[in-house]
C-alpha cells in the first residue's frame, strides 16, 4: 500500500488530494502508467510528464526512481514559491 498525493492543478484535475493505493509498480513511471489507465481524469493529469514533478517520501525524485520501500509519492507541477 502506498499513499499518493496530488497538489495544485494535478489535485484539481484528479479531483482529490490524496489516495491510498495497492500497486505492484516498481518505479514512478510504472505507477504513472497504472494511474493513466484508470480513468480519463488521470490520463489528463498525467498527459505531459515534462510539466510534472514527483517526490518520494517527501524528497524530490525522478520518474525512473524505484518505489521499493516508498510509503508516499506526490505529484505536482513545478514549484512557484517565494
Amino acid at each position, binding site marked *: 500500500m502506498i499513499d499518493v*498525493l496530488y*497538489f*495544485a*492543478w494535478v*489535485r484539481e484535475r484528479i479531483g482529490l488530494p490524496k489516495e491510498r493505493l495497492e500497486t505492484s509498480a516498481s518505479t514512478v513511471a510504472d505507477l504513472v502508467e497504472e494511474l493513466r489507465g484508470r480513468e480519463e481524469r488521470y490520463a489528463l493529469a498525467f498527459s505531459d510528464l515534462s510539466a510534472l514533478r514527483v*517526490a518520494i517520501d*517527501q*524528497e*524530490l525524485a525522478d520518474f525512473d526512481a524505484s518505489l521499493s520501500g516508498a510509503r508516499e509519492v*506526490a505529484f*505536482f*507541477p*513545478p*514549484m*512557484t*514559491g*517565494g
Partner: protein
Amino acid sequence: MEIRVQAEAFRSGKELEAFTARTRGAGAVVSFSGIVRDDSGELSEMVIEHYPGMTEKALEQIAAQAVSRWSLAGALVIHRYGSLKPGEQIMMVATAARHRKDAFEAAEFLMDYLKSRAPFWKKERNRDGDSWVSAKDSDESALDRW
C-alpha cells in the same frame, strides 16, 4: 537557522529587528521580502498551497546548504500559505554574516532555491477566474550559478 511555515501574517520589520538582535555581532544583515503584486488591478487574492511535511524538510535542507557554503551568523526563512491579499507579505529570508558578501550571496541562494525547490504553488484569483502561476524558466536557470 530558523524556518517558519505559517498561515498567519507577519511583519518584516519586526522579524528583521528580532533576527538582528539574535545575530548580534554579525556586522551585515540582508533581508528579502516577497509581496503579493497586483499588476492588472484585477487580483482579488493569491492562494498558496504547500505540501506539509515536505515543505519544512525542503526549507531546512536549503538553509543547511547555505550555512555550509557561507560563513553565516544566522539564517531565517518565513513562508506563508493560504489566502493572501495584494500588498501582503508572502515570505521573507534574512541572513547575517561578518561580511556583506556572505550575507548577500546566501540570501540570493536561499531565494533561488526556495523559488523552485520548495513545494509551494501559487494560484491567483482574479475577477475573471483563477489561474495557477506557472514556473518561469529564469527561476530554474537561476540555480545554475550556485
